[in-house]
């Protein structure tokens, strides 16, 4: 294994971490808004807040980690993606900022109004949509090299079916991941009405999630045949992922082992996400940028990897403590502890 592969794997793992926990967060906000709209907020709001409050800040860090890391390991991405992504990423940042700040304002600052609930819920759908554009662009065909540098063609981008398929996938996946997790969490909290509601949402969003994911593979066939070929070579990973999907849906349907169901879902997404990543290899931005021609110097790569390992040594015990005190603490999950400052 070479340094380039180690670098991109580290980043891909963190991006996966971000996708999972941010999906839970984004989806929770949407379900909360939706149930408020339907007049059922008493069922979900407490559960969702109990989960989100101690961990929301951590979510953001996964994203920061990814984009700082990618500039470190692959400095050329700063030039290519930095120049082309000004608009979509700025919009995502603004939405993230409003979402993050108003979460704190309402949760800790007692700012209470339904419009913040709706604002929060909607940003949860727009952020994944705008961030997913980056993946679309990476497939190539939307950026050309001009004299001044790389230029993104918005018209081509927004009229491409691939763009909208990926946007749809990002939204359905967010809702599905979140619903399965919150079913499990509500069940742990011994809140049967919330469990039932979230279980219904999980089942509702299961099919759209798997359909949009399949749709993208079909879209790629015409958009980037080379990538499509590589995906087909990895058919067994995607099939395995589909099996895990069936397992999750079955367990949720049968109302048993919600924890295992969420475990299977995590497995499903790990397999699909890494299979996608491997099939994307070696390109970071097709066809301009590969992990080899954009890689940093060996001395920097080694320094970053050492820092990464040392950092993990600090983080893993801390994350364990966080989960131990809140996610896996019976009293806290059941809402019996009120220890907020």
């Amino acid at each position, binding site marked *: 294994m070479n340094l380039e592969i180690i670098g991109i794997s580290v980043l891909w793992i963190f991006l996966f971490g971000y996708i999972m926990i941010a999906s839970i967060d984004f989806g929770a906000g949407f379900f909360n808004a939706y149930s408020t709209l339907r007049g059922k907020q008493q069922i979900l709001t407490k559960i969702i807040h109990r989960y989100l409050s101690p961990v929301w*800040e951590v979510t953001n*860090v996964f994203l920061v980690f990814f984009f700082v*890391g990618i500039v470190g390991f692959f400095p050329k991405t700063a030039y290519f993606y*930095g120049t082309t992504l000004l*608009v979509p990423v700025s919009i995502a940042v603004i939405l993230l*900022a409003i979402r993050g700040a108003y979460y704190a*304002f309402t949760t800790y600052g007692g700012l209470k109004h339904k419009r913040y609930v709706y604002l929060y819920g909607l940003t949860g759908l727009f952020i994944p949509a705008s961030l997913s554009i980056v993946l679309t662009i990476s497939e190539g065909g939307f950026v050309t090299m001009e004299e001044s540098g790389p230029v993104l063609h918005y018209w081509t981008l927004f009229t491409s079916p691939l763009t909208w398929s990926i946007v749809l996938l990002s939204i359905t996946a967010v809702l599905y991941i979140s619903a399965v997790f919150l079913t499990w969490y509500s069940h742990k909290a011994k809140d049967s009405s919330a469990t039932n509601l979230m279980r219904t949402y999980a089942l509702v969003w299961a099919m759209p999630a798997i359909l949009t994911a399949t749709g993208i593979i079909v879209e790629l066939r015409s958009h980037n045949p080379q990538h499509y070929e590589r995906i087909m070579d990895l058919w067994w990973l995607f099939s395995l992922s589909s099996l895990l999907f069936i397992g999750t849906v079955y367990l949720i349907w049968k109302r048993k082992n919600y924890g295992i169901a969420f475990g299977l879902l995590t497995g499903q997404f790990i397999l699909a996400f890494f299979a996608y990543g491997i099939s994307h290899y070696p390109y970071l931005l097709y066809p301009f940028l590969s992990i080899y021609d954009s890689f940093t110097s060996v001395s920097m790569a080694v*320094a970053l990897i050492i820092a990464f390992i040392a950092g993990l040594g600090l983080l893993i015990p801390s994350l364990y403590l966080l989960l131990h005190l809140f996610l896996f603490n019976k009293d806290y999950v059941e809402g019996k502890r009120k220890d907020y400052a």
Partner: protein
Amino acid sequence: MGNEEAVFFSRVLTELTLSFHIIYATIGVGIPLMIMIAQWIGIKKKDDHYILLARRWARGYVITVAVGVVTGTAIGLQLSLLWPNFMELAGNIIALPLFMETFAFFFEAIFLGIYLYTWDRFENQKKHLLLLVPVALGSAFSAVFISIVNAFMNAPQGFDIADGQLININPLLAMFNPAMPTKVTHVLATAYMTCAFVLASIGAYRLLKGSNHMYHKKALFLTMKLGFLFSITTALLGDFSGKYLAEYQPEKLAAAEWHFETEEGAPLILYGVLKDGEVKYAIKIPYALSILAHISPYTEVTGLDQFPKDEIPPLYIHYLFDIMVTIGMLLIFLALLYCVGIWLKWRFVLSKWFNWLIVLGGPLSIIAIETGWWLTEVGRQPWILRGFMKTAEAATTSDHVDTMLLLFSGLYLVLGIGSIVVLSRMFHKNTVEQELADQGLEKAGDSL
């Protein structure tokens, strides 16, 4: 949009984001230490006032952290979005501290969540206090690592350029550059100093607005003592910064001091205005610039005459320097007067007008932080990476920077107003007196 416009709007947007972020970032770095000290004193003295002080500060702190986190994410991404050429170069050489900053911040974020939600979980309060240590360390190290990146922009090293290619990259040498020691310590000390004066300002304001509670008096005395300690430290470090500049960035020092001609025994120019290239109404302190730059009053200080015209920073940074230093000195004096006054029981330090001066200290220290950053950033111009890359060469070629500037201005307005409204409502609704009564907190001393 022409490239010149893209450069201009990129500069304005970066300046706006940094100016807004630095307020929340400074509070984010300094407050955890203040909370720690208050909680520690509370536990030691068995005084519930200090415990409540820590608790209320922590509650307000979360709001500022939230804004700091999201604006920090914004500036983190804007570096690549607005300065792609610079980040490509910087990514190759100075990525290590940027990367470590995310770890430090990660560490802080995790423990802040834990600290906030475990206030009454432990029998032994010291265990809870222990959870704050990683928060304070994480936030301090975030500041250290980011300041290292900024120091690198001022004094780049740890690489060579041959035929337009970067070679011999040494990430550690790049981190431990000559600007690093003074930059890092100055940033940390001023963060603690600012937080102390901001908290003191709040305490003094409560005392002025009718509450005569011992709680506020204790808060005020504690924060003024800390303010004195850190402002003295800051002044000392400021002196070291001058010596660093004289050695490694003489053009920045010369521009900030309006030192036009290289000479021995150079005087220090304070205040004044520049009219048609002449300094008017200034106070000249003989030999002081030589002392600031090289300790001895007779040494030579390099003037602006030694540099090509297009490599000299804008001369208005002198005003920024004046504002920063004046505020610093005033605050040292104010804090000293207050602490000595309390000790010797001078009546006037408890008077209304003196309290108003302390109230003013909070906003003033924030202004000093802002002018300090403008001074160092504008003082590095025309370079983004001194000696290697000019700001104009670093900016994006994208056409939409002006629209993004509008969008982000709107965002900061919303966040600024939102955080002020939320913070003031939070503490108005739940007064100290009420909270002490609600929680039955009675173990408290009657003296400072």
